């Protein structure tokens, strides 16, 4: 998650390592599993939720399956955090998801471009501000989901350590954060990875690991310039129409 893209066959660069692709795949399946077993519990009075819970073998088995996926998420997050820590500690590769001042100016510039106040959108490095926002939102979300989920799984243990009110608060947090994650993913991630005009119908790079040089030039010109050992263009942009 931290190294830069490297040259691959003609016209393509390797953007994601095999480990990163596996991680994304596991997270994707796990997320679907958590949503499928979690949302019906939140909306259990509705017909569709009752049908889903019945189809999955009743509320007791839905809860066990949800806990299983929850534990998978915990392992995945710890694994990812260990990888990130290793990248930060090693001097050779930095932590490319770190938020910096440039992300804020990029966001302002891109929004101004959308509004027609700017000729070009901002030029991005390895991850643009939207990708960083989604990454950190889901990271913070995962921590909230894991802590509140464990609280709901072991209420008696938690009430021995802290005030009992944490438990209903954890339920409210878990239920709302889960709903928000679901909505953000369906709206934002599906737009950016599928419906976005530049990638439509499907941005496959997280599965194949590869990205075309043309797309790099377009979406991550600063990283491309660095990989190719040259200074970025004046406005860091190869094409007339924009993408953020």
């Amino acid at each position, binding site marked *: 998650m931290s190294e830069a893209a490297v040259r691959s066959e003609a016209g393509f660069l390797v953007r994601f390592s095999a480990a990163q692709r596996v991680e994304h795949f596991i997270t994707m399946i796990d997320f679907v599993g958590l949503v499928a077993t979690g949302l019906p519990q939140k909306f*259990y009075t509705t017909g569709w939720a009752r049908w889903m819970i019945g189809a999955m073998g009743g509320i007791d088995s839905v809860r066990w399956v949800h806990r299983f996926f929850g534990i998978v998420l915990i392992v995945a997050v710890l694994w990812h955090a260990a990888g990130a820590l290793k990248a930060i500690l090693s001097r050779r590769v930095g932590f490319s998801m770190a938020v910096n001042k440039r992300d804020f100016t990029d966001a302002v510039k891109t929004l101004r471009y959308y509004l027609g106040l700017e000729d070009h959108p901002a030029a991005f490095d390895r991850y643009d501000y939207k990708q960083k926002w989604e990454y950190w939102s889901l990271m913070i979300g995962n921590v909230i989901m894991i802590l509140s989920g464990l609280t709901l799984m072991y209420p008696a243990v938690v*009430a021995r350590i802290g005030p009992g009110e944490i438990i209903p608060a954890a339920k409210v947090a878990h239920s709302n*954060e889960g709903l928000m994650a679901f909505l953000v993913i369906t*709206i934002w991630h599906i737009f950016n990875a599928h419906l976005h005009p530049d990638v439509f119908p499907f941005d496959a790079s997280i599965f194949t690991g590869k990205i075309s040089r043309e797309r790099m030039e377009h979406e991550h010109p600063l990283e491309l310039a660095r990989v190719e050992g040259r200074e970025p263009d004046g406005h860091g942009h190869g094409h007339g129409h924009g993408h953020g």
Partner: protein
Amino acid sequence: MNMTKRLLLALAVALLAPAARAEIPAEQDGCLGCHGSDPSMSMDLPGGEKLPLHVDQASFAKSVHGDMLRCTDCHTDKGDYPHESKPFKTRRDVTVAYYEQCKKCHFSNYTKTLDGVHFQLAEKGNRQAALCVDCHGSHAIGRPGEPRTRVSATCSNCHKKVFDVYSGSVHGKAVTQGNADVPVCTDCHRAHDVADPRAGALSLRTAEICGRCHTDPKLMKRYGLSTNVVETYLADFHGMAASLQKGKKDKGDRLAAGCTDCHGVHDIQRPNDPRSSVMQGNLVKTCGKCHEGASADFPKAWMSHYEPSLKKSPLVWSVQVFYYVLIPFILISLVLQIALHLWRVVVNR
């Protein structure tokens, strides 16, 4: 005959007619000639019991059937005299042999009893299981539930221990004071199709059973009680799990707590009564029935049927408000940015 005489005759007929109607149909069989005169009339049964054979005409006349049934309507085999001899050994034999007479007229209630726990026991050979006449009586049948206190008193004939517990509860005490608002046995257990409460099926339905009264605003206002109790229960874990487990009957499943699991069943007291299982000091023990290792602060995990508020549970309330603001804010921002982006793409083309 002159006019005056005619008028007098008409008047006499009009006055005598009600008196003639007061003669009950049971008398028309002539049974009461023998069975209505000697109060000590009885018959020795081979089992050693005495079967009383006297019918108190006055109490039968007052009963719900007094002005419509003849003796042979129920005692169908007793039309002839001398009566055909039957091989009854005990009084119970007599009851078991005759109770099905009721179904001729009361068919729908009779079929309901077939789903009841009493019939299930009777079918397995338990001869003490309640039959129609055990609850309703035979000759002196009154309107059921009049007065309401009579219902629980009737059940107490067999269920004495439970009745004593109930009499000491908040509901039972009110019944003995003549309060008609509180539940008697049949309000929760039903009358004819009494479910077997031991399988747990009844405890999963308590939200609905207790909710019949405890969500009625008019009724609860009289006692200053909240009508929000079922809604807050259903909004939490226990209520969700219980309502999804409702159809289940397998004993092996871990069933979620219903109303009675915390408040008690027959021994329900006001929550501020020291004997109440949901009184603050008793909560740790009550939660501990299911939640192993429940500590002193564990009962606070349950918001005592209160909606989260700044006063009652500030942490829960704050988290709720946080998300009520955050979720719409985030979603509107994202959708707005997508819309602007697409608009720019279209404009550039």
